[in-house]
């Protein structure tokens, strides 16, 4: 049996890495005595599968994790038992049983929604930058890879951009960024737009299938209450 859980990463804990979050989950599942299935072999590992890595420093209200279990468990019980064992800012907001044969998150998720605070910019100016980016045939950014400078074109992965208005001395940028050919980080998007990067929060992950879009876990969005204020 596999259970998929949706969880948040908000507040100070956003400064931990994707790997750190995996280790937090492993310990919380052990503390909650959840019957997690382990891999066979010399070094047995708990069978957990995380989706797209969240860049260190970003927040999220839409992180996912698939957990393989040795014995059956009510998803609600798992959410309750383990939720209290996770650090502040990491909360389980939904959990459900996966149909056998469901693809992994890595295979399925095609795009993510982001809300990004852009400091010290007027919404009108952000609008201009957005328009220019969407009209551009390519959005090259320079980055270092294995000690060499490479130029990447972000344009194919930038699916949608909009300015959602003023936000705490700056403006709020909404973005839908595709995961293929490769996932785009908010910091790369900011670089391509020529703006500063403030707090970035992943708000949704989408699976595109047969022309329609699905969330990895069907939940009542009203069940997720997240204040915009930082938890810390």
């Amino acid at each position, binding site marked *: 049996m596999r259970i998929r859980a949706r969880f948040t990463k908000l507040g*100070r*804990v956003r400064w931990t890495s994707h790997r*750190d979050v995996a280790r937090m989950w*492993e310990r919380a599942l052990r503390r909650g005595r959840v019957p997690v299935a382990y891999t066979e072999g010399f070094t047995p590992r708990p069978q957990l599968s995380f989706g797209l890595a969240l860049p*260190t420093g970003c927040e999220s209200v839409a992180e996912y994790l698939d957990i393989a279990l040795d014995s059956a468990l009510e998803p609600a019980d798992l959410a309750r038992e383990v939720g209290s064992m996770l650090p*502040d800012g990491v909360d389980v907001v939904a959990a459900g049983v996966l149909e056998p044969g469901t693809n992994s998150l890595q295979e399925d998720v095609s795009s993510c929604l982001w809300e990004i605070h852009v400091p010290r910019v007027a919404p009108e100016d952000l609008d201009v930058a957005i328009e220019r980016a969407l009209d551009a045939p390519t959005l090259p950014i320079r980055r270092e890879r294995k000690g060499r400078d490479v130029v990447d074109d972000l344009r194919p992965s930038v699916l949608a951009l909009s300015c959602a208005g003023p936000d705490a001395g700056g403006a709020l940028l909404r973005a839908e960024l595709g995961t293929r050919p490769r996932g785009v980080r908010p910091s790369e998007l900011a670089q391509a737009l020529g703006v500063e990067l403030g707090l970035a929060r992943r708000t949704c992950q989408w699976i595109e299938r047969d022309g329609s879009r699905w969330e990895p876990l069907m939940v009542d969005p009203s069940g997720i209450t997240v204040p915009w204020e930082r938890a*810390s």
Partner: protein
Amino acid sequence: MTSLWPRIEPLLAQVTKPARYIGGELGARRPSHGPERVAWLLLYPDTYEIGLPNQGLQILYEILNERDDAVAERAYAPWTDMEAAMRAASVPLFSLEGSTAAGEFDVLAFNLSAELTYTNVLNMIDLAGVPVRGDQRDPSHPVVVAGGHCAFNPEPLADFVDAFVLGDGEEAVGDLTEVIGVWKRSGGARHDLLRSLAGVPGVYVPSCYEAHFDGGRLTGVTPRYAGVPKRVEKRTIADLGEWPYPKQQLVPLIEVVHDRLNVEVFRGCTRGCRFCQAGMITRPVRERPAEQVDQMVRDGLDRTGYDEVTLTSLSSADFSGIGEVVSKVINDPECSGQVSVSLPSLRVDAFTVGLAAEIQKVRRTGLTFAPEGGTWRMRQVINKLIREEDLYAAVDAAFSQGWRRVKLYFLIGLPTETDEDVLGITRLAGACADIGRRYHPNVTVTASVGGFVPKAHTPFQWFGQNTMEELRRKVGLLKDAARGTRGLTLRWHDPEATAVEGLVSRGDRRMGAVIEHVWRRGGTFQEWSEHFDLDLWTTGLEAAGLDFDDTVYRHRAEDEVLAWDHVSAGLHRDFLWQDFQEALAEHGLEDCRWTPCYDCGACTGLGVEHMVASAVPPAGGSQGTGQDLASGGTVPVRFLERAGSLSAAGGTREGVR
């Protein structure tokens, strides 16, 4: 107490590993400050990953926070990128719990575990906005205290630290809290506080002592005032069972060293390895009752979610009933075979490997042994009485039971060492690799070689350390010898860093100027090879009119005043000298837990005894050699199962193989 968090958080996007600075560990307390509480900031002068697991700091953190009159928070040395960001934004050193400026605390308390971190101590005091020199502080500044193993030679830090605590801190922090609390309410001068602190047992206040020199030689460190003790004796807790700490070990959000549950099974060691400062200064042996160990392991695993526990001590296989404790954990159905146990400092014998085989069912990665010396002669000198056949049997057992990697620790630069002793290292390690290949075509044996640094309060405290050129030559011999040896990997410690460690570990008060010189020129994180800078130390020495020859490489005379003679770990100086002479004569000494007392001073002087649960030495004999222990005498040993009886059973004890 105001939170600096709004000023700290913007810096985090600019630095590597930002989670070093966010706290939030499981087990971290929400500090409750108030005028009735003495506020302690516990500091570790190295990175978060190195400092967080430190058990001494965690023990004191809990003990202080359980008190009504104290509150404790923590801070670790910010990495160079964070320091630069903090200085640029005028953000001072801050606590992890409340993001409170370090300068707002009553006490800055440092854990001193390694000499090369001393420049970080100065840097953290400075980052706190506190003058680095004690004589420039006023009553508005926190009092700077330090404890830990390195405090047993406090002199190099005498100019910067107001008070040192020697020995076990469990009880001493309470005494300090009371003295500081009374002084705080009295509104007295800083000098009054320092005088009161000097009256607390186990506390050394350097400004209450004067160091005398004659022609560049230290002639004594004596009290300036009446009522200040001539010699400060260390603190010792008599019964480890009364201190089941940490009860709530901190579980960090990021990966740190020793990232697992730690349960201390005993403190102190009487194996008597002559190079080992930890073994000498922590005597006598005090075991934790086995049931308490079991309980602490169980509760700890439950609480933390860790899947690995280390039973810590200086030689955990010596713990009476180690086998029972280990099998309980391993066979606990609740742990369902997912928990592994590790024992640091494995003794070298087949029994230990059997134990290791039982506990590392889950993850059988590598085994580590520490023969320390390459030849039997060398091991007699250092009193690490492991015979070649003991090592081969242990290694054979390890490889035959599925291990593929064995690591061996050695020292070079030991007293009386010849090139033959040095080359014994590669010969021994190579022979271990040969044994391994009988079981598997690809085995690795790693010989990890450190340069020996003589330490205070050990029999080798008089010994002139090998020069860095000599150590380099010896490393060269080993590299040549290792080149043709199949399956052998050689690792060695930088001889330059070894020389500087020697400078600080036996330095007197004049070394303070050198440490300050290095720090003022940006020499922090000196134990990190990418930051270590020998030139800074060399120019600092020159500026202070000192050199390596006199302070590090020179043999001390029997009657010479040593920089740490006025502080005591309970050991008689003549015992140490005698043991040094025994070493030079290549005589080993058996473990006094199961043999007659050598009157080292640790038990008698401190009014406590060795506290062990078993009257018989562990399998393999007192040193793992199966020596004949059938010598009579009176043993200052109290047996736990006969609680209360101060058994000093004379007569014959037998070694058990």
